[in-house]
């Protein structure tokens, strides 16, 4: 059960993602991006990125187009609400295929 070094004598945590498990399983709706409305996509250069800024879960990438890490996205909807061109809509999870939402990893 681990090695008996100092770090095991104390509550000493190292960093990594998914402390809360696969938090993507929390959401009931997921953000979907319409690239035709997305400013950086339309301009094909760095711009806006308000969705990236306000994502509480840090699952939106600062890329063209911005991508959502569905492993951890909790579906809060802030990105959709804040997007200045309403390029993001929140869509019911149930609309997506089961295999999409059933990826299991060895998180506890």
């Amino acid at each position, binding site marked *: *059960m*681990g090695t008996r070094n100092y*770090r095991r004598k*104390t*509550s*000493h945590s190292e960093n990594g993602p998914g402390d809360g498990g696969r938090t993507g399983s929390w959401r009931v709706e997921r953000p979907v991006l319409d690239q035709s409305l997305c400013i950086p996509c339309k301009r094909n250069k760095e711009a806006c990125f308000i969705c990236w800024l306000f994502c509480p879960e840090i699952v939106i990438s600062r890329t063209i187009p911005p991508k959502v890490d569905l492993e951890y996205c909790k579906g809060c909807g802030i990105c959709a609400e804040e997007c200045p061109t309403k390029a993001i809509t929140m869509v019911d999870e149930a609309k997506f295929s089961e295999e999409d939402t059933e990826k299991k990893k060895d998180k506890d």
Partner: protein
Amino acid sequence: MHIIENGNVAAALGVKLCRANVIAAYPITPQTPLTERLSEYVELGQMKAEYIPVESEHSALAVCIAASSAGARTFTATSANGLLYMHEQVQWASGARLPIVMCVVNRAVGAPWNVWNDQQDSISQRDTGWIQIYCSDHQQIIDSVIKAFWLAEKVSIPIMVCYDGYILSHTYMPFDLPEQGKVDAFLPPYKPDYALSPDEPANLNTVTLPDVRTDVKGELAHGYMEIRYLLQEELRTTLMAAAEAEKRFAGIFGRSGDPYIEPYRCDDADYVAVGLGSITYQLRVCVDLLRKEGIKVGIMGVRFYRPFPDVAIANALKGKKGVIVFEKALSYGYEGALASDLKSALYEHLAGTGTLPFVQNFILGIGGREIRTDDLTQALRAATKSRVSKEPTWIGLKL
């Protein structure tokens, strides 16, 4: 070099010699001269340390906990209600396995207010997972502080060095002031196994679950219960480290004794008086008197109270007719804490062997009530005739 100073200064000198580099302190009678002296050393540049005059005892230990987590050698001191105020932090420091050294200048606890000596303050902390050492004179104070830093850093467990308020803290005695060079040889600079820093980031002491859980590397990590178990297990093995400390100290400073107990005329004694701290020296007068009367009585001072040296104590008291425990504190609702622990150790090791002495518990000196040597002698003499009472008997009560 022998000097004449008071107990608080003896402690301060010990801290200075050990090169503690973060000191946090909040004033409380009768600890104040200790921390005042430390502030003098720091301001004069005789100690290279950060001295933080905190705004409460709770914060004093908070500063030490944080400073120690980041790798400093830390010290604080307090008494009575100050110790009680920092109780939450006392529990925290041991659970966090930090080698903090704290002097407790024993004083009675409120309510009601009382600034004089008894040992209720430190005794009430005996369950917290700290090592507790009790000193009987100024030499023991300064030596125990030095040993404490070494021991704490060796086992990663905090230590309380306790000595009686006023009786030791404010009285003057001659004692040997160890040389800095020898202390440096005895106590190398603090090298923690881990010190919090951006170079090797970690999140310390967060919520820890009841059960074990996989870490970021995929290995199973301990749960809360294992962490606490390790504290207990390593507290018990501290008894061995304490013996090692005593040997090392003897090798460098040329003086030592039993690491756990301080016996006086015990070998051929039929009855042994037991106590913590300065009372054991006061008892010597009584013992010498009773010996002249033909009563074979001795004293066993208990130096290490936590971890409790049950084996050493049981061995020392094996076959004695009676053990008389004089205490300046009690576990309210039952009896003296030391008496209880002693009975438990005797029972554990001697029950059924025919060598079990009776245990008589006396409570005295509560709130600084004067302990008259005559009263001590009388009580001791009476107890050697037959056990006085099952429940503790209070000496010097004036109902």
